[in-house]
């Protein structure tokens, strides 16, 4: 009996001791979560996480991948329940989530670790700020260029365009191509825009024609003469048969049309660049976008945010600091997944492609203007108004001027209604 009791005491003692040991071990090891939306990028981010964990053995980063189509639906649901990841991909929605208190203000952390903003593209830094407070760490920026299928130019005997070309040059090239295509009895298009992407096609064109998304006073600038001229230029190209119309690219993505040789050129945003890189294409060349009235163009920006409800903010900041580091930006640039925000790493992005020289993407970054979504409370509404109304315009259910006036009026009404 006594012996039994002794054994029991010893055993429970061992058990308690072992629990204490594992207890302290668990305390030292902190797990933070990191959510992102891009499967191609996730491979590179896993590598970054591995490097980070090696340098910080006490922090474990758990990656949560949600496809783009569901990312924001899931993000809003989890953030509303204080369940969002500790660190997450963020893009042009910084104002919305800063306003909602989801994004942790980062000024204190940045001050402590001497964060140097001058190392990053100004357009990215600008759009990570809301009401003068920094809410996000710069990740990267979109950019635009034109990708040219040289084989088709050779086939039709048309001289390829070069850097420094203008919008009118583009129209001339398109005209020559169209004549040659028809003469050969083919039915492909000279040029191609991703018309169903605001950031990837029609908003940048509005900026190229001297327009912008919002006026100084915060009202929509989409009904300006410049904006009308930009969209009209695209509609004219549809009418001429220079580019596939909206219906065609709804059916088969504009990038797919280019990859399958249905179009000779494509107005290519960086977020689709990997599609061309990974396609089986030879003989492609990347040149700068044609200048219309202005060198400016609109480019969406990407950031990393920290959850204001995180329980491990210091560890999350360490990870953010690493993601913003030269090492991480260089890896991202070299992998070609995203044009990094850190200026010194951008050249690697240009060199990362094997099918073409990506330098044209990098060259134009100084002219990039950050995308805006209007006041935080109305940004979801504004986004959806733009996507719906542009269909009416490109499908010619309404005149360009009239359609953009309606779009601007609807946006202003949404801004007014939420005030």
């Amino acid at each position, binding site marked *: 009996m006594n012996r039994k009791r002794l054994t029991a005491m010893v055993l429970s003692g061992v058990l308690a001791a072992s629990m204490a040991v594992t207890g302290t071990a668990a305390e030292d090891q902190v797990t933070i979560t990191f959510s992102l939306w891009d499967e191609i990028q996730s491979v590179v981010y896993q590598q970054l996480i591995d490097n980070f964990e090696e340098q910080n053995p006490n922090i474990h980063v758990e990656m949560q991948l949600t496809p783009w189509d569901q990312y924001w*639906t899931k993000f*809003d*649901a989890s*953030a*509303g329940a204080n369940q969002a990841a500790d660190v997450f991909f963020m893009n042009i929605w910084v104002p919305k*989530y800063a306003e*909602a208190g*989801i994004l942790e203000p980062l000024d204190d952390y940045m001050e402590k670790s001497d964060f140097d903003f001058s190392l990053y593209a100004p357009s990215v830094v600008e759009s990570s700020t809301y009401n003068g407070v920094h809410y996000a760490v710069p990740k990267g920026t979109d950019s635009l260029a034109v990708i040219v299928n040289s084989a088709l130019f050779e086939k039709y005997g048309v001289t390829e365009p070069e850097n420094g070309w203008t919008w009118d040059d583009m129209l001339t090239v398109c005209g020559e191509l169209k004549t040659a295509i028809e003469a050969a009895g083919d039915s492909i298009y000279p040029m191609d825009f991703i018309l*169903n*992407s605001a950031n990837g096609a029609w908003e940048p064109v509005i900026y190229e024609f001297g327009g912008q998304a919002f006026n100084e006073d915060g009202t929509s600038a989409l009904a300006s003469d410049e904006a009308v001229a930009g969209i009209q230029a695209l509609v004219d190209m549809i009418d001429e048969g220079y580019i596939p119309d*909206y*219906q*065609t690219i*709804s*059916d*088969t993505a504009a990038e797919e*049309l280019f990859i399958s040789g*249905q179009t000779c050129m494509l107005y290519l945003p960086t977020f689709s660049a990997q599609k061309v890189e990974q396609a089986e294409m030879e003989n492609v060349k990347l040149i700068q976008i044609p200048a219309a009235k202005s060198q400016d163009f609109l480019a969406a920006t990407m950031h990393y945010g920290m959850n204001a409800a995180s329980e491990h903010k210091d560890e999350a900041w360490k990870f953010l600091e690493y993601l913003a580091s030269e090492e991480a930006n260089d890896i991202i640039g070299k992998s070609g997944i995203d044009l990094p925000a850190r200026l010194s790493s951008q050249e690697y992005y240009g060199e990362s492609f094997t099918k073409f020289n990506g330098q044209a993407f990098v060259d134009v970054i100084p002219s990039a203007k950050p995308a805006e979504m209007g006041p935080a*409370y109305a940004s*979801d*509404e504004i*986004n*959806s108004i733009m*996507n719906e109304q542009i*269909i009416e315009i*490109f*499908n010619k259910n309404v005149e360009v001027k009239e359609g953009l006036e309606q779009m601007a009026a609807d946006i202003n009404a949404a801004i007014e209604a939420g005030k």
Partner: protein
Amino acid sequence: MRQYRSRRAKKEAMEAYLFLLPFLVGVSIFNVYAFVQNIIISFTNKKSLGQAKFVGLSNYVKLLADAKFYQAIQNTLLYVVICVPAVIILSLIIAVALNQKIKGMGIYRTLIYLPVITLPTAVGMLWKWLFNNQFGLINEMLAGIGITGPAWLSDPKWSLLAVCIVLIWSSIGTAVIIFLSGLQGISTSYYEAAEIDGANAWQKFRSITFPLLSPTTFMLVVTEIIGFFQVFDLIFLMISSTSSGMKGARSIVMLFYEEAFTKFNKGYGAAMANMLFLIILVITIVQMKLQKKWVYSENGGDDK
């Protein structure tokens, strides 16, 4: 004795409730609670984040003036009007054809049911390729017989019909199975009697099969109508939100999804869901009233 019996009945009832408990808990959490919450949310301006404010009936007022909502109602009615008769008629024909003792009938029945057990995502993706304007098989085949096929999914004039084709294709299987079980419940003695009287196949169908199947048909019509009023997944899978075909194919539930989960106007979306509930409720009540008129009952018509 009596007391014993009632005590025993009570015990049995308790046991039955115990077995039903998991189901009842599920229903009350996911159906009843969600339904009540939805009604409450529809009177607020709830967005995805932040505090919701009570706004009275303003969501409903806005809804009744929303042209997109009427467009969605019109599209939804078209889905119902096209798909329900098509599914009922086609599946009845197939069920009658399959209700024979031929070798290999099991294979036919399996083939007919296959679309039902196929993952809707796979169905959506596959038909999306078939319908593609540039590379799709359907337009390729139409071109073979000299017809230029439309842009099925991106032309707003055709997108609804294209979705209907897939909806009908994928919902026939279930209806066929239910019709088959109804057919097997009809006693062969009726047919034997009719044969003695010299009835041909059509007369047998017209006077025996069709009336005796009417309870099954009625049940199917009611559930199919409810189902097609809630059409969403195939539209969502085959037509992207930025496609020019969406306008012609957008159903009420699709519009609800866009409002509640893309624009994050949850309060407004909830009001829309409640309106859909009301519409389905009214239509189902009307059908129940009409039931007596056209459902044939074997024992004289007033069985309860």
